[in-house]
């Protein structure tokens, strides 16, 4: 992997409009049962503007930025060798239906570990007003020849 990737910031990904049905679909897929994920009245009663997405939903928004990284011509990342090492979501506020979110990816670290490489990428996700919603951080392990 190209060590010069460290510190690189990518152009913002296309804005992602969070829909109610997408939240319900994702919540069902992760075995969520909270009414605040499914029932607009329950979400409003809890003080939210609309349905709240499950904590790992931002991965859907982050995905476009990781695709940018993997497609970067000089990155030297072979997708078939990529393993997800770790993942983190740090929220300023929860994602709710109706949010228009824009993610911007920055490579924070590139390391070698024997034949393997590790890249940590941080996607900063903001709403339509530019206010921070959540940062999604992934470490990808690219397996080398052993």
């Amino acid at each position: 992997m190209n060590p010069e990737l460290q510190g690189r910031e990518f152009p913002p990904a296309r804005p992602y409009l969070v829909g109610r049905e997408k939240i319900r679909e994702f919540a069902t897929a992760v075995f969520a049962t909270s009414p605040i994920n499914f029932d607009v009245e329950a979400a409003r009663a809890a003080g939210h503007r609309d349905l709240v997405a499950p904590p790992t939903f931002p991965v859907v928004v982050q995905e476009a930025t990781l695709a940018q990284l993997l497609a970067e011509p000089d990155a030297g990342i072979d997708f078939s060798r990529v393993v997800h090492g770790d993942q983190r979501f740090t929220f300023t506020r929860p994602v709710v239906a109706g949010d228009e979110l824009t993610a911007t990816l920055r490579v924070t670290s590139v390391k070698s570990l024997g034949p393997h490489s590790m890249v940590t990428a941080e996607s900063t996700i903001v709403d339509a007003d530019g206010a921070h919603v959540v940062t999604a951080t992934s470490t990808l392990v690219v397996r080398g020849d052993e």
Partner: protein
Amino acid sequence: MPAPTPDFDTLTVGDIVAERTVDLSRDSLVRYAGASGDFNPIHYRDDIATSVGLPGVIAHGMLTMGLAVQPVVDWAGDPGRVEDYQVRFTRPVVVDPTEGATVTISAKVGQLDAEARVARIDLTTTFGGDTVLGKAQVRVRLA
């Protein structure tokens, strides 16, 4: 109705706040692939999974991460109370085409930040007796 939010002052480090068992099938993986947009074929094709050295089709790490936090969300009463969630993927969850896979989650109070009224909940997530998520920590803002 969602459960009422737990009172921070009643918690002690080491308390188990939630436990759950989830049965995954191949259907669960297809559903997650569609919902998340992650169509990596190692999550639905045995031939491709074995060609990259896996014992068979495995669950998306992000599916395991996504379902493991749900008992904590239900305990907290609101998904919006999760302010930080991190995991390390340590072992794959192999999902048998007929038997599926059973994942067990136990959520314990790991640390209490009295000033912020935030509880760090530590998850132990196992499959076949092995832990599949390392350093799985959820920071939950409580009342």
